[in-house]
């Protein structure tokens, strides 16, 4: 089997690529730091995209590891927090990006690797959010009749783990009966289950407080974070909400780092290859000894766990969760991120999450704000660009799929080359198999 030799781009030369990404990061960081508070929102959104591009470029280039770390670490650990302090909106965008990136990585396992079309994925997100939402607010007192303000914020850490476990249990419970369904039947059943969970949240008023949602969710105490960051906090005279936003930022960064590492290991593991085998051909996979139900259930549960953990974090970020946060469109949104980014590709779905969240929260909003200031749209009372963000988004989706159906960063699988000497005499490989890119 021969593979087409890809033309060498400048990003394929490690030392050149290292230089380029370092310069790029430095330039965009500087630009971002200078315009973060001054320029108009649209310009800011574009510069912000360039800054986010750092992550993409770092993933895609073949730069040396040291250069990657040297460009990403300061950008994420220093530049972004400073931008966030100066411009809370951009920090909010980044928090949303990371939350959705985690969801997209979870759904990527279910849809991208195992090939199970799940249209109700946001249900697991809801499960995680409500798990801490109910216990960490006055709602638990109302359920038991004991009153009170809910569990102390420090229980959050335990519930972060519990949210994962509950999401996994729900994933298995949902998965077990429906996994023998195929393709579109699975899609509609998961869609239905997602709706069922939303309707439960909406109508099981004694437990979930119905459409009003759970309010006043206790965040964990972050005294230690204060102490840790006290020089910075004092230097910039940060307010309490700003410190909490910073804390959330570092929290989601840690969680997403764990999730990404986990994904990278899974991708190359036995189970990861089983998922792909099932996606490619269920019957052949079964014939080769892949246990279908178990493998699919693990995919469901793993995907659910990421959503569960982010759900709990979402609960403390918003301090309130309501059924409105978990609609069918959220599930569709995450699916769009996965496919737009490149199914089955870890950097791809992260880029997908970035692109979609940035477009929806930042760019399209800024664009319509800007258009509203133009004379053509003044006082006409009919066409308000802010109302038609979905129209642009729809157009972008169509054009994206027409011109780049494989996604922004398609998955690249490592090929396993079996040395010829191993195949000449017997079918069993006598030498260790070499793995090459």
């Amino acid at each position: 089997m021969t593979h087409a030799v890809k033309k060498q781009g400048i990003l394929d030369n490690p030392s050149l690529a290292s230089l380029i990404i370092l310069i790029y990061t430095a330039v965009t960081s500087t630009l971002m730091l200078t315009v973060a508070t001054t320029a108009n929102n649209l310009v800011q959104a574009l510069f912000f995209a360039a800054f986010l591009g750092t992550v993409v470029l770092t993933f895609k280039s073949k730069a040396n590891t040291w250069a990657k770390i040297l460009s990403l670490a300061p950008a994420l650990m220093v530049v972004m927090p400073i931008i966030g302090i100066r411009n809370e909106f951009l920090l909010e965008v980044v928090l949303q990006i990371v939350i959705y990136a985690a969801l997209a990585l979870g759904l990527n396992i279910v849809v991208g690797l195992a090939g199970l079309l799940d249209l109700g994925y946001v249900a697991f997100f809801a499960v995680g959010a409500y798990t801490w939402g109910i216990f960490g607010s006055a709602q638990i007192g109302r359920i038991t009749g004991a009153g009170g303000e809910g569990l102390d914020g420090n229980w959050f850490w335990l519930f972060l783990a519990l949210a994962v476990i509950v999401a996994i249990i729900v994933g298995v419970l949902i998965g077990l009966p429906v996994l023998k369904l195929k393709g579109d039947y699975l899609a509609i059943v998961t869609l239905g289950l997602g709706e069922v969970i939303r309707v439960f949240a909406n109508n099981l008023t004694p437990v979930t407080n119905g459409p009003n949602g759970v309010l006043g969710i206790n965040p964990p105490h972050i005294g230690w974070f204060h102490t840790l960051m006290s020089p910075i906090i004092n230097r910039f005279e940060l307010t309490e909400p700003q410190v909490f936003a910073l804390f959330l930022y570092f929290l989601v960064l840690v969680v997403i780092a764990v999730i990404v590492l986990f994904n990278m290991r899974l991708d190359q593991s036995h189970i990861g290859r089983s998922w792909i085998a099932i996606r490619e051909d269920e019957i052949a996979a079964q014939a080769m000894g892949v246990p279908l139900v178990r493998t699919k259930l693990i995919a469901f549960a793993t995907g659910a766990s990421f959503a569960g953990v982010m759900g709990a974090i979402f609960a403390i970020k918003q301090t309130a969760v309501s059924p409105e946060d978990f609609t069918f469109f959220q599930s569709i949104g995450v699916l769009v991120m996965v496919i737009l980014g490149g199914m089955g590709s870890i950097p791809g779905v992260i880029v997908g999450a970035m692109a979609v969240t940035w477009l929806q929260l930042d760019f399209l909003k800024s664009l319509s704000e800007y258009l509203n200031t133009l004379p053509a749209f003044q006082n006409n009372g009919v066409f308000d660009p802010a109302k038609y963000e979905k129209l642009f988004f729809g157009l972008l989706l169509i054009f994206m799929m027409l011109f780049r159906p494989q996604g922004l960063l398609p998955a690249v699988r490592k090929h396993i080359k079996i040395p010829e000497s191993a195949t000449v005499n017997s079918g069993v490989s006598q030498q260790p198999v070499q793995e090459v890119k």
Partner: protein
Amino acid sequence: MSDLQIWQQIILQGLILGVVYAIIALGYTMVYGVLQLINFAHSEVFATGAVVGYQVLSLLSGTEMNGYVKIIIALLVAMLISGGLNILIERLAYRPLRGAPKLVPLITAIGVSFLLQDSLRLFINIKEKTDRLSYPSVLGSEKIMGLTPTELLLIIVGAIMLIGLNFLVNRTKLGTAIRAVAQDGQTARLMGINTNNIISLTFFIGGALGGVAGVLWGVKFTQVDGYIGIIPGIKAFTAAVLGGIGSIPGAVVGGLVLGFLENLIGAISVFGIKMSFTDNAFLKGIGSVLMNIGAEWKDVGAFMALIVILIFKPAGLLGKATTEKV
């Protein structure tokens, strides 16, 4: 109301809602049958039909015409425009992607759906300076055979659509061609069928059905906007899957079952509170369980039923279990 009247209402309303679901579901099923594609934009084709119907009816509202004639004109125009729109969607968003992985056209379908939702709202906004449209009532309120004219209209138009489609698909040359393409596009092409034309035609028929359903929906529920397609779209897709997606009688059965179930559960959640089912211990029991809950439970009931049915019949009520090609 006595129990008998309640039951009559449940069955009648279930039938009417079911007919509308069935007509929308047929649009999904036709397209799915030939392309194996979930046409998410179908909800918006349906909404377009509803808006077009409104425009035609309000244009005709000044004229001295019989109400039924007005509605027939509205139905025909809606069929043409929705069908044409569906052809256009297929040309621009799906045809270039034929042969791509299944999820890719699914995303363009979602994109088209978003695009159309806001375009419809823009259109309504520019023409009517409002976001919501109220259908003019063109039919009187005089009951015929115990049914309101709207109910009668829905049942009759629904029946005509279903019988007509059945005739078209099973008894005409065109229908044979559609079935051939649905079964095996490649072989059909070898047999001299222009598959592209047949696919366009299928999209036209599916869109026309969506348009009809949109007008009927508007006549029944009177309020229309750019987003009305979403919920009926999901329900109708559910109905199509429930009956066995790709199967035409399946879509009808699925629509009727779903409509009936929704109304039954809705009625229990409303009348159960009032304890109207005095002489039926079972229903009284269900009623007391479902006390104090919103009407949204009918959706839960419908989806739960879907899940249970699919667990026992994984290919839907009338779907054939597909044999795997190895």
